[in-house]
């Protein structure tokens, strides 16, 4: 089996307080994969760590069998919508074009072909007519589709999307999930942070259930069991939280062998 992402024994901490403990998971390529978990479970943190935006406390991640920096261009990231400044003076087209920066780099010129690709991505998500609109003057669904277009314009092989369905109308959600499905049939891997349990079952091939630690990871029908869901959503892991708080108070290192370095 080909793996798009291998996560090896990953622990991530903020200010010494671990928010992900010992995550070990292999995610297959060419699948639509859902990450499920309650608020604060560390879903965003996991995605950001995979993207190299947050340093891992210990453990490592491989993408297509290689370290991230070898395959950066092939990975695309859609941030959670709360992190975007919707007042920023950029148009829908400007945002879509940013996807092409993966290929032009910091200084390379945007060619006509890049514009065509960006426009094509906008067409795919039905945002072509709004190309010149400032992003603040769009509905929630349109905003999310704009960022999806940016990811599509990157022409990546792996897509990491943080809550792409938050604040999105039902029609958009349906259209987007169809599009993502289509992408997986073309061999792309799509990883989606999702918050709705009801639709998760039908949407995804593969699921990763997360609540600070990995609860389960595997094909959706196997993983989507009442027991697993209870472990993910029910019963707070009071012990784990207490220990994490203690580590924060004592400024305890995440791993013993990190002690010398710090």
């Amino acid at each position: 089996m080909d793996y798009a992402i291998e996560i090896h024994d990953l622990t991530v901490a903020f200010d010494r307080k671990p928010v992900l403990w010992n995550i070990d998971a292999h995610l297959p390529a060419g699948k639509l994969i859902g990450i499920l978990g309650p608020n604060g479970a560390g879903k965003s943190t996991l995605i950001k760590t995979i993207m190299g935006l947050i340093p891992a406390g210990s453990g490592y991640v491989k993408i297509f069998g290689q370290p991230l920096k070898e395959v950066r261009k092939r990975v695309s990231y859609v941030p959670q919508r709360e992190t975007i400044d919707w007042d920023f003076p950029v148009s829908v087209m400007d945002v879509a074009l940013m996807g092409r920066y993966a290929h032009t780099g910091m200084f390379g010129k945007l060619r006509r072909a890049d514009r065509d690709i960006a426009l094509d991505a906008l067409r795919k998500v039905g945002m072509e007519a709004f190309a010149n609109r400032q992003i603040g003057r769009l509905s929630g669904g349109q905003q999310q589709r704009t960022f999806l277009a940016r990811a599509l314009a990157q022409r990546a092989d792996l897509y990491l999307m943080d809550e792409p369905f938050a604040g999105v109308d039902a029609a958009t959600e349906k259209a987007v999930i169809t599009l993502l499905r289509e992408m997986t049939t073309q061999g792309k891997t799509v990883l989606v942070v999702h918050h709705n349990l009801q639709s998760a079952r039908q949407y995804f091939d593969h699921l990763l259930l997360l609540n600070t630690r990995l609860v389960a990871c595997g094909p959706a029908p196997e993983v989507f069991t009442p027991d697993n869901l209870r472990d993910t959503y029910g019963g707070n892991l009071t012990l784990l939280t207490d220990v994490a708080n203690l580590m924060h108070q004592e400024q305890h290192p995440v791993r013993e062998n990190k002690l010398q370095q710090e």
Partner: protein
Amino acid sequence: MSASYFFLLSDPNVQYVALGAMLLTGSSALMGTFALLSKKSLVGDAIAHAVLPGVCLGFILAGTKEPLWILAGAFLTGALSVYLIDFIVHNSHIKEDTAIGLVLSVMFGAGIVLLTAIQKTGNAAQSGLDQYLFGRAAAINRQDLLVFGTTSVLIMALVIVFFRSFTLLAFDRHFAHALGFNVKFIQFIQTTLIVLAVVIGIQAVGVVLMAAILITPAAAARYWCNSVKTMLWLSSAFGMISGLCGALISYAAPAMPTGPWIVVVASVIAFVSLLVAPEKGMLSRSLRQRRLQQTIAQENLLKTLYKLGEKNEDFLHERTAQEIMRNLKSARPQKLLRQLLKQGYVERNNNHWKLTEAGYLRAQRIVKIHRLWELYLTTYMNIAPDHVHDDAETIEHLLTPELEKELERQLGYPSTDPHQSQIPYRKT
């Protein structure tokens, strides 16, 4: 006044001053745009104040007011303040705004102490050092102009080269990082350029008001446009206008420090922008608001005629203004009727009014949306039927044709609303 200013401009000294001030304010407005977009306006203020101890140190080391020493000193402490803020935020639990305030006041305090100490020495060379507090553009000479010119060209060139990087960093830092952009390097270049802009600006503007020169033109420009490129052009144009006017005023009246005048002109530009800019300006907003209210009043009148028509099943029936008034809560129904007449939605026959075909269709649409919305609220949101009317009163004027279609589709083209009134559809 224009004649005397024109006369002033033919004096080469004044030309230096005017050109120098424009270069300073124009290039600092460029960096101010990125500072504003990255929400780093306050950092600009900290840098400006932190430059003062550097000015004094440069003077102490050189022994005279040698511009290069002073600029170098200013640059060092200005840059130091940025790294201090960063260091405090990353290594303590102090929040960024507190860290900025802390660094600003400590550095500025140190600068004032040094300045006072230098003045106490009675060194003749020190006279005029306090001009760095409020700036004096009139002192700009040929040599300064060369320094300003070079720095401005450098800033402009780097803004062009790094345009994409600066913009992306301000908009979506994580995405820039994810793309493999060297975020730390870009940040370093941007910070360096902001410090540089502040440092060359202080001679004309002074440390106290430099942050205003950095940010105000950008803030004004933001009102007029929705693209970073246009914003850069506008902001530097606003900056240059303020620089030019400020320098001329302070040259014409030598007792006036330049900095405050530049800030006054920049603030006037910002204030005018806030008032009259299309779309975002206050006037345009209140105008839009008024137009909306007028539309609502007109539509309510059309609706009244439609509902009266519903009673006797003759929608195009002629009615007197008195009858309409009895059924409509409006302060000036006559005026509304005249407006609607001009727009072609009603017809007049002496003292009798009736809907035209277009008026009938428009009224029908409003009534339809009103009743659909009431139904939507009762079925989807479980709101009691007697609580939905007021909400529908506003929504009926607001819904776009797309949302109207979506509403019809979701409800499945129902025939009556929660109060058993017919929902009228347009016959095709």
